[in-house]
């Protein structure tokens, strides 16, 4: 099973929600749609699920055009951010509902429901109603329905967003196993870069209604094609500043300068944007190549073993993320060290050049 989009485009009353998009998604791993709220992840899922009509282009399931096929005939499952179960049915009936609609034999339904319930540890709760379950159990019930249905494609639209932290981590670990070896294409929408990295597979970065980059998740993380992609795939947001290149020297507006190396040094002179991930900006120098820069500390946060500091440097607000606890004083100037060897350089159009 594969899902292929060919210039798929969605418009509602003349407003384009999804710009022409081409993608090919395969089974065997997670296909992550990563983008901020409003970037079109849900819209794209609804297009593939057949819940919204296609304005132009085509959607192929296994090479067969399903663009005109109804949702039901596409044989898909969808798990929402909200816990969507039939309120007056037991967990058993909820899991069995799509199988019953499909007219499956009772014994087969029973087998599939039991199997899905076992995988998701819902065995003891089969006779309860959704509102008697915790949030995590309700979402597991929705997942069990998707698994029991054995559909060709499974769409998970931020399924963990409404769960509390611990449940989210637990379920996130289980998710890849749940769908492994089932042959279905699994599409997972999320707004958290960390989730995309943990789930692996392939990632489609979404920004403003179109896919800006698609490929193996780790590769995209290492080489974001555009500044927008780099921004989406970084949490806290990636640090960016305008620089001017002259010879092998890069110079920020604040006067900070450093020597460019490799591909960056070979670029024609002119204006560029430098971008550095927060954990490559540290309060202590980690190597001789780091570039020192001074900034005024605005906000500091301590999360577990890491501490972050937001600091103002000229017109730009940057974030530093480092292990350990560091003594920052709000409003004071501190020196931070940027690891220039980890920096990305983008041209005036926001394309990665080095």
């Amino acid at each position: 099973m594969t899902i292929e989009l060919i210039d798929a485009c969605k418009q509602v009353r003349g407003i384009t929600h999804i710009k022409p998009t081409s993608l090919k998604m395969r089974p065997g791993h997670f296909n992550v749609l990563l983008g901020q709220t409003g970037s079109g992840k849900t819209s794209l899922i609804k297009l593939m699920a057949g819940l919204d009509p296609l304005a132009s282009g085509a959607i192929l399931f296994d090479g067969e055009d399903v663009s005109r096929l109804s949702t039901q005939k596409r044989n898909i499952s969808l798990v929402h951010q909200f816990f969507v179960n039939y309120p007056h049915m037991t967990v058993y009936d909820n899991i069995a509902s799509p199988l019953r609609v499909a007219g499956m034999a009772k014994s087969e339904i029973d087998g599939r429901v039991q199997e899905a319930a076992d995988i998701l540890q819902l065995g003891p709760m089969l006779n309860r109603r959704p509102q008697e379950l915790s949030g995590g159990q309700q979402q597991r019930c929705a997942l069990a329905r998707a698994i029991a249905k054995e559909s060709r494609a499974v769409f998970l639209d931020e399924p963990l967003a409404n769960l509390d932290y611990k449940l989210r981590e637990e379920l996130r670990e289980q998710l890849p196993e749940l769908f492994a070896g089932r042959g279905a294409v699994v599409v997972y929408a999320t707004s958290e870069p960390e989730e995309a990295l943990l789930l692996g597979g392939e990632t489609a970065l979404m920004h403003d209604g179109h896919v800006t980059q698609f490929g193996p998740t780790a590769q995209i993380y290492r080489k974001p094609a555009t500044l927008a992609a780099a921004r989406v795939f970084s949490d806290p947001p990636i640090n960016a500043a305008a620089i001017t290149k002259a010879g092998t020297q890069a110079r920020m507006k604040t006067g900070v300068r450093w020597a460019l190396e490799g591909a960056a040094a070979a670029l024609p002179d002119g204006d560029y944007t430098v971008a550095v991930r927060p954990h490559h900006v540290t309060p202590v120098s980690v190597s001789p190549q780091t570039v020192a820069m001074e900034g005024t500390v605005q906000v500091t946060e301590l999360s577990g073993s890491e501490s972050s500091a937001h600091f103002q440097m000229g017109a730009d607000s940057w974030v530093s993320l480092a292990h350990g606890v560091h003594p920052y004083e709000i409003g004071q100037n501190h020196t931070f060290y940027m690891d220039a060897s980890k920096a990305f350089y983008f041209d005036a159009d926001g394309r990665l050049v080095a």
Partner: protein
Amino acid sequence: MKTENQRAWFFVLPVLLLVAFNALVPIMTVVNYSVQETFGNNVFFWQGLDWFEQILRSDRFHAALGRQFLFTFLILIIEIPLGIIVALAMPRKGMWVPVCLVTMALPMLIPWNVVGSMWNIFTLPNIGLLGYFMNDVLGVNYDMTQQPISAWITIVVMDVWHWTSLVVLLSYAGLVSIPDAYYQAAKIDGASPWKVFRYIQLPKMKTVLTIAVLLRFMDSFNIYTEPFVLTGGGPGNSTTLLSIDLVKIALGQFDLGPAAAMSLIYFAITLLVSWLFYTLMTKDDAQ
């Protein structure tokens, strides 16, 4: 550590006083009348439960109670399904939503006695628009001042016109609060419109429907103004509902004792049936 004192009573005291003044005290005066024979100049004679016995044995009360239950039954059996159907047919978004909502709310904004007068004039044979249309255009013999059946149809239709909107608005509120995700889930499963109604919309509307049924039961069971203005309880006694009969006894005949006893019985029945409805409709949730 556990602290025990009686301070909590101070916090409920204001509510107790309020309830005492707006419910208990008026009811106690009625209780007072119901067990005594009242003459002028505040002369009272103790009667015990005689009035209650007399009312409970009277054919007149049984007939009025029967008419009252028939009326309420018709109201609920028509208004609840009709209200749900209209709510389902209303648009969920777009410019027609406010238009529909205001149109629905209009009948409820009209004072009750005006509703009665409107329908009276509207349905009078020969001069009323509906009366004229039925008799002189359609040739149907329709006269709510002479025929009990016509009178009944008129008071029921009038109440449906006046109050179905309440059920519509409550159901509509329940419907619009259902997230789209549920409809999408049903679409993915390939559920039919009936199944969407039965397994998503109806369960999700249950709370507001419970309120709608209770409100419509209490209102229709205690209805007075509109049928009184429309038919005055006639022709004969055919539309004399409980409240109309009660007012006839209390103010027409000035029999304060029997009227008070009847009020209390009336109140007890309303309370009992309301409790029954509530218990039956919320039974599932308590499990």
